[in-house]
């Protein structure tokens, strides 16, 4: 019961903190800018992509529809969203330490494990809201502005055409995996937050880890080949697998397993650290 009370507290704190709305505002602006650009000059961009296929294929109907626009937006933005998540979640423990409120909370009859778990869950709820808002802005608003139709996806294997009726569930699956990836970022930032009393440090450290792992994942160096499959950043773009045909289920499950394993490790390390920590702030 006290876990629920603490969770409610955490949600109230996030909801009433101005910083929490920065991410949602940023998504609104960024998605709006991309949608405006595609509305204004989107066909020329599409023509540039489809030009190479026009000798063998004929494109008919609304190619630049809401489904494709949403895909383009997600591909462009899901790399930046971790920063918006870490801005809030990286502050959940260390921000309280910096303010001194963690000392007040820790003198209450709630176990430190419950206190921290409530922060992880609240971080997860915030991440879910960010993803849902991303979905509403990109998919729902995209379809309203650009209409709907079959979806054309260009990936490494070539061009995939997905039927209009076959798209929505793929977005649901894609967003679910994207949520898991972002929740890993949330867990990482909360975990780092347990090691310091500095409010900004964990946010910067989280972004540095993501940057480092992304660079390792991009470098074509043999020495990194062994670790690449186990880096969570490698699986942050796994949501795209839902737009392949047929679905690469093995790869999707592998990504889910790696992301879940990261979360288990990060949450366990955080609980252990926070439980043993001397609160001197």
């Amino acid at each position, binding site marked *: 019961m006290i876990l629920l009370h603490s969770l*409610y507290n955490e949600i*109230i704190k996030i909801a*009433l903190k101005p910083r929490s709305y920065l991410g949602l505002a940023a998504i609104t602006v960024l998605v709006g800018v991309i949608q405006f650009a595609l509305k204004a000059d989107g066909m020329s961009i599409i023509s540039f992509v489809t030009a190479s296929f026009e000798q063998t294929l004929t494109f008919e109907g609304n190619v630049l529809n809401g489904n494709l626009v949403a895909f383009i937006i997600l591909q462009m933005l899901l790399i930046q969203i971790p920063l918006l998540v870490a801005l809030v979640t990286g502050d959940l423990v260390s921000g309280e330490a910096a303010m*001194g409120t963690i000392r007040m909370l820790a003198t209450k009859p*709630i176990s430190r494990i419950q206190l921290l778990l409530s922060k992880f869950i609240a971080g997860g709820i915030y991440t879910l809201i960010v993803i849902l808002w991303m979905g509403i802005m990109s998919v729902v608003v995209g379809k309203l502005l650009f209409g709907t139709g079959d979806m054309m996806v260009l990936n490494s294997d070539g061009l995939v055409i997905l039927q209009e009726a076959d798209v929505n569930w793929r977005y649901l699956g894609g967003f679910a995996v994207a949520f898991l990836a972002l929740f890993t970022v949330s867990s990482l930032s909360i975990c780092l937050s347990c090691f310091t009393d500095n409010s900004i440090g964990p946010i910067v450290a989280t972004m540095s880890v993501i940057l480092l792992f992304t660079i390792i994942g991009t470098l074509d160096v043999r020495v990194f080949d062994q670790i690449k499959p186990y880096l969570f950043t490698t699986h942050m773009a796994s949501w795209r697998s839902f737009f392949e045909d047929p679905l690469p289920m093995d790869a999707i499950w592998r990504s889910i397993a790696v992301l879940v394993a990261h979360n288990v490790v990060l949450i366990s390390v955080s609980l252990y650290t926070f439980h043993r920590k001397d609160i001197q702030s």
Partner: protein
Amino acid sequence: MPEKIIEVRNLSKRFGSFQAVHDVSFSVFKGDVFGFLGPNGAGKSTSIRCLNSLIKPDSGTVELFGESIATHRESILGRVGSIIEKPDFYKYLSAYRNLEIFSRISGKPSSKREIYKMLDFVGLGGREKDKFAGFSHGMKQRLGIAQTLLHNPDLIILDEPTTGLDPQGIIDIRNLILRLRNEQNKTVLLSSHNLAEIELICNRMVIINKGRSIVEGSVSDLMNSENLILRLEASPLPAAKNTLLAWKPTLLWDNVGDSSIQFPIEKSEIPALTKLLVDNNIEIFSLEAKRTLEDYFIKIVNQ
């Protein structure tokens, strides 16, 4: 024998090479207003943090209400209200919302009416919706006290609660502590470097210095030791001074105004001195034997 509310035995805590607390022991009984006295850096805050399980001691035991804080943390903390160092709240939330948040995890969540009543009790009535960020230091302290009392704890731990308050604020907090003891029979542990405060409101105390507890006992007993300061108002004063020098040639005194002097004396010497002054036709207007906590404290920590 009253119920033991706090029992600390051989508490030690080290941070790196710094020994913050070394072998500290003391007991607090039900209904005590217990003074926790020591100079800055003596280890008071570290000890208090151990009482609240904010810090885990390296060795020693801390028992509250007869149970170890290490094994019964949650059930114990439900009966304790604390302000450690200074009350810190969420700056972007109102006074009401801050109390609501801490109340929700206190084990006894309070209703809106109870929170408003408590804010009124500490003198913050009408400021419920104001953000904490805009509060003065005194208002923050009052909100801290409200947070401490809201769940009606049996033990109240106040770490330097009057620091930074104006004289009226200090008196208010002092009166509040006395009311808590007298009207509600609460047990209060009061950490302070304000010696007069301890002297005025505490019935028992421990003095801690360099991480060690030096002396523990009732304030009146500790103040009633043999070495006193005697203030004498007499006329004619020069004749009184000559009599004193004849009686004890090494005696040194301080002038207090035009008609009084004060000097150290042993309690057993007072009757003989009084008789001597009267026999020498010196009029005695007042004779005040006192032992201030400050004198005692300075003597103790310098030993």
